[in-house]
């Protein structure tokens, strides 16, 4: 079977800041993978590359065997990190979900599309605010709408950047359950950035530990060794200059 994601020597720089360095990964299809790492470790950058928003400076990347440029955007659903979202745009929640179906801001949507959107909103317990303007939604509510925008597409690959931020604990378990369930039913591959190790451990199958470099990818059972965690989480403040990988060069 074709792998969901393959990367070879992937590098990304913002100006002269190395955000990702030599990432080599092979992720099979239908895995639910969590990505863990300190702030600024390149998690969002990695998802943004997969979503086709930014292009790597060097290295290769394939999603379902295709290059990012040629793959249909129908296959990929991306939920950005909440701190990057803009509430200033005049729109009601359901329009955002419909944009997930239309791949643009449709002037009109069909009833069939609206039914689909409403169905997903119901599943996410978000139907009660489907007609509310974006600027009246709480952070958690907005996050759900973005998730709905993604799920309504029934993508083959889901890229979730901290989808549980701002969502209360009961709902979060619920949310993880919904995502997990969705992945089983639709056989979706999922990459989810999270800072919540417990939920990563409970809900996902594989774990990526990232700190600019790939520290670990594999089964969650072996992920949380002391050595891995040391490498991932030491010196989070100095990630520009120092990681354990190149300490010997300093």
């Amino acid at each position, binding site marked *: 079977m074709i792998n969901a994601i393959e990367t070879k020597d992937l590098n990304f720089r913002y100006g002269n800041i190395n955000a990702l360095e030599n990432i080599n990964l092979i992720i099979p299809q239908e895995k639910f993978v969590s990505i863990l790492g300190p702030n600024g470790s390149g998690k969002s950058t990695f998802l943004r590359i997969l*979503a086709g*928003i930014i292009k790597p400076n060097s290295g290769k990347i394939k999603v379902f065997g295709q290059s990012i440029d040629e793959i249909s955007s129908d296959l990929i659903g*991306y939920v*950005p990190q909440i701190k990057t979202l803009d509430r200033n745009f005049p729109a009601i929640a359901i329009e955002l979900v419909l944009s997930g179906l239309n*791949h*643009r*801001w449709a*002037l009109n949507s069909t009833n069939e599309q609206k039914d689909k959107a409403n169905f997903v909103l119901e599943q996410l317990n978000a139907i009660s605010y489907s007609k509310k303007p974006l600027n009246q939604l709480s952070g958690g509510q907005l996050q759900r709408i973005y998730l709905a925008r993604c799920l309504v597409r029934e993508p083959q690959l889901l890229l979730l950047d901290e989808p549980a931020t701002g969502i209360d604990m009961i709902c979060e378990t619920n949310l993880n359950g919904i995502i997990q369930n969705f992945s089983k039913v639709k056989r979706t591959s999922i990459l989810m950035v999270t800072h919540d190790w417990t939920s990563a451990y409970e809900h996902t199958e594989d774990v990526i530990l990232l700190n600019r470099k790939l520290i670990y990818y594999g089964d969650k059972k072996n992920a949380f060794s002391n050595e891995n965690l040391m490498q991932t989480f030491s010196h989070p403040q100095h990630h520009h200059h120092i990681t354990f990988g190149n300490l010997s060069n300093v």
Partner: protein
Amino acid sequence: MFEIFILPFFYRALIIIILLGFTASYYGVFIVQRKMSFLGSGLAHSAFGGVALGILLSVQPLIIAIPFTLLFAIFISYFQEKSNLSSDTIIGIFFSIAVSLGIIFLSLKENYTTDAFTYLFGSLLSVQLIDVWTSIILTILTTFTFFKYWSRWTYATFDYELAIADKLPVRKDNYILNSLIAITVVVSIKIIGIILISAYIVIPGAIARLLSKTFRQMTILAIIIGVVSGIIGLLISILVDLPSGAVIVLFQSILMISVFIFKREK
């Protein structure tokens, strides 16, 4: 004094103000939501350079001003994309280049003052048939692109990165939008005047923004406000015999402040 309403220049002005009310406010919606009002101002001043060149060469200024302003729009978009400088800085630089060129062009021409004032402040009497035709062409172009581009520009306005992720050619789309805005600016010059164009384009969108829940509503409302306020402003300006650009923009501003206060009190 009512005989003015049967003069041909009045009808030319009326047609232009209706068509421009539509196009300018339509693009104004994107300008407001993308927070690029300064672009309108920058392009208007770029147009000044083009107009001045036209006056210097003694050809129809519009014919020079349109390509001249388009060129500046493309430069501005290009530098916005390629450099780390903020939009304000880039527009400000091109703004100054165009104005400097304009001043130099005009100073090379003898007896330039009257014409130049027309363009700075706008004048109904200066409106010619060619202005009517360019606004008709602009309106057709706008209607034509509406169906393809509204939903794409809107999506990119809402979230630039999601639009890229959905494989929209956002850069190309931006060039097209900025070019159409540039043409709108040039065509508005004679009636509104260079100094007030930016406000004229932006205010209907800003009023609509205060009153709308969705971007679709905002678009429709801005167009209605743009057309109606243009017509009313034009009529008032003729009745009280004051420059129409100034009267229209002042009328729009009063409308905007009223809506703002009304919304606050509610």
